[in-house]
C-alpha cells in the first residue's frame, strides 16, 4: 500500500494534476506514511522524472512548470506543515535561497530552477520576485543557506546581481555562501566580473552546478 500510493502520487505530479496530488498526499498522511518520505518518494520523484524527460528533449518547459505547480499546494498546505509538526525535514543535500532581484518581476525560469533543485533533494527557500538586496543577505544568513541564487531577466536589473554580491562582502558574510547568477542577460563572464561563484544557463545545469559547488557527486 505505502509504495502504491507514493507511486500514484509521483505519477499525478508527472501528469500535472493538482487535485489528485492533493487527494493522494492526504491519503498518504492518513495511511501513516512519514511526510518526508511522501515528499521524497512521491512528489520529488514525479518532478525528477519530468526533469529527466526534459533533459532528453522529451518534455517541454510547460511540463516542468506544470508539474511544479501541481506539487505546490500539497507541499504548502499538507506536507510542509506535517514535516514541521513531526519535527522532521526532507532529506536535504543543502539549503538554497533563490529570488528575482529588486526591480525585476520575471520568475518563470527561477520557479523552474526552484522546482528542479527541490526535486533533486535540496531545501529551497524561494524569496519570490522584486527581492531587496537586504532581504537576500538577511534571509541567507538566517537560514544558513549554502547556496544563494539571484535571477534577472532584464539587462537593466542585471547590475543588481553585483549589488547583492557586494552586500554579502559588506556584511562580512561572503564566505558563508556560494552566490550564483542566472537569467537571460547573465553570462559566465558576468559571473566572473562580479565575483559570483557561478552561472548556469538553465535549470538542469543549475542543479549540476549546485551539486558540483557542494562537492556532491
Amino acid at each position: 500500500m505505502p509504495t502504491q500510493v507514493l507511486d500514484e502520487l509521483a505519477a499525478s505530479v508527472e501528469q500535472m494534476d493538482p487535485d489528485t496530488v492533493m487527494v493522494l498526499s492526504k491519503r498518504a498522511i492518513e495511511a501513516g506514511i512519514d511526510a518526508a518520505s511522501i515528499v521524497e518518494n512521491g512528489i520529488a520523484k514525479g518532478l525528477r522524472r519530468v526533469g529527466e524527460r526534459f533533459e532528453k528533449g522529451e518534455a517541454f518547459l510547460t511540463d516542468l512548470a506544470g508539474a511544479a505547480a501541481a506539487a505546490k499546494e500539497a507541499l504548502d498546505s499538507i506536507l510542509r506543515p506535517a514535516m514541521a509538526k513531526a519535527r522532521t525535514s526532507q532529506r536535504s543535500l543543502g539549503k538554497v535561497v533563490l529570488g528575482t532581484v529588486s526591480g525585476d518581476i520575471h520568475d518563470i525560469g527561477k520557479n523552474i530552477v526552484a522546482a528542479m533543485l527541490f526535486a533533486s533533494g535540496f531545501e529551497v527557500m524561494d524569496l519570490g520576485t522584486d527581492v531587496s538586496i537586504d532581504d537576500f543577505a538577511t534571509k541567507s544568513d538566517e537560514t544558513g543557506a549554502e547556496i544563494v541564487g539571484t535571477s534577472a531577466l532584464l539587462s537593466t536589473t542585471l547590475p543588481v546581481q553585483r549589488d547583492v554580491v557586494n552586500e554579502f562582502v559588506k556584511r562580512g558574510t561572503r564566505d558563508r555562501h556560494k552566490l550564483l547568477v542566472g537569467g537571460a542577460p547573465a553570462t559566465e563572464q558576468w559571473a566572473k566580473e562580479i565575483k559570483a561563484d557561478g552561472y548556469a544557463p538553465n535549470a538542469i545545469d543549475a542543479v549540476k552546478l549546485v551539486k558540483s559547488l557542494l562537492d556532491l557527486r
Partner: protein
Amino acid sequence: MVRQGLRGGIFRPLPRSDIEAIHGASLKILGQVGLQVKSRTILEVFKSGGVDVDEEKNRVRIPEHIVKDSLSKAPRKIVVGGRTEKNDLALEHGRVHFGLGGTPTPYTLDMEKGDFRPSTSEDVINATILGDALPNISFVMSLGGASDAPHELAWLHEASLMLRNTEKPIVYAASGAEGARYLLAMGAAVTGGFDNLARRPIVTLFSEPITPLVMPTINEAVIEFAKARVPVAYAPGPMPGASAPITLAGEHAVCNAECLAGIVLAQLVSPGTPVLYGIHTSVLDMRTGSVCYGAPEWGLGWLIVGQLAEYYGVPTFGSGGATDSKCPDSQAGAEAFMNAYLNAMAGINLVHNCGTIAHGSSGSLEMGVICDEIISYIQRLLMEIEISDETLALDLIRRIGPGGSYMAEKHTRTHLEKGEILHPRLFNRQAIGDWKARGQLSTQDEARLKARAILQEHKPPPLPNEILRQIDEILKQATRTMTR
C-alpha cells in the same frame, strides 16, 4: 531628399473584422485588467490625463475614449533623420527600411576565429561602420555590446559609438529617465540643438513594457523623449506561453493593449509625439527555453502588427533578418529571409535585427552582410510588375518572330538597366568550374571577405571635434551620476 524606402505592406492575411476583434479585446484588457505601473512619475502622467488610477495597486485602467484621443494625436507619418539629409527616412504605412542589430548582444561571433566571445566596444564600432557602408541598411542599432564599459553605462556608451561611426539614423534604448536625458543630449549635440533633434531626430527610443501588462520604471525614458518630441518605438517582447497567452490572438490582444498604453503615455506627455508601434512575436521554445527570433510565428506576428498599425494609422518598428542559428548557415538564411520578407510584406517601417544570430544573444558581421544581400532580393520582390505596351513588347515579339534572339535588342538593354533583373552581389551564380577556381567559397566565406574589405576601406566621416568633445563630456557626467 528623404529616403522613401521599399513599397511593402501588400499582404493582409486577416479580415478587418479580426483586427477589430483584437482591438476590442485589447480595449477590454486596458479597461478591465489594466496595467501595473511601477513608476510614480508615469502614474502621475496617467492620473493627470484622466486615466483611472488605483493608487493602492499602482494599476491604471485606460478607457476607450482616451485611447482613441491619443491615437488621433499620434502622427501618421514620421521622418527620422540621419547625420546628413540623404540618410533621412520617411516612415508611414508600407514604407520599409531595414536596420542592423538591436539591443546589445552579450556575444559576438568573431569572424576571424570562427567562435563566440564576449562583445566589446570594438565590435559595436565595427558593426556600425559595416552598417554605415552596407547600401541596403538604412538605420543602425547595436550589433554586439560594450561589455567593457561599466554595466550601468553600457547603453549610453554603445549609443555614443554609433553616433560617432555612422551617418545613418540610430534607434536605441535608454535606462530610465536619466539615461534618456543623456541620450537625448548626445543626439542634440550631433544635430546642433534640441530643436534640430526634434525636427530631424537622429536617435529614436526603443522602449518596452514587461509583458504581461507591467510598465517598469525604466519606461520613464518614454516621458523624456515625448517631452523632447523625439520618436518613441514602444514594442513589447512577449514570451508566448509564459508571459502571454500562447496563441497569436491572445498574445496580440495583450501586447496591443501594452502598445496602446505606451502611445497614450507619450501623447499625454506631449500631444503629437511621434510614436512607432510594434510587437515582437517571439517564440519561447519549450524544449530549450530560448526566445526565438527566427520562428515562423515571428513573421506571422509582424503581419498582424502591420494590419493593427495600419488600422490605427501609426508607423511601425519591426524585426526581421535575425536567426536562431549559431552561424550564418542555411537555417540562418532561411529564417532571416522569411522574417525580413514578411516584415516587408506587412509594410513595417523600421525593421531591425539584421545580423543578429543565436536568438538575440550574438552579433555576426558576416550575417549582417548576408542580410544586406537578402534585402536586395526583397527589394526586387517588392517591385511592381509593370504590364504595359512597353513591357508586353508585342511589336518586338512580331519583329523577332519565331526562332529569333532578343539578346542584342535595345529593349533588352533598356529594361536590364531599369532593374528588370537583379544581379546578386554576394550570392553565387558562377559555373561549377569557376566557383571551384575561386576556392569553393561558401556564402559565409564571401560575406567574411566583404566585411573585411568594408572594415579596411570604409571610413565614415568623423564628427567635428567640438561635437566629439560634447559627447565625451556627456559620458563623463553620466559616469559620475549613473555608476555606483
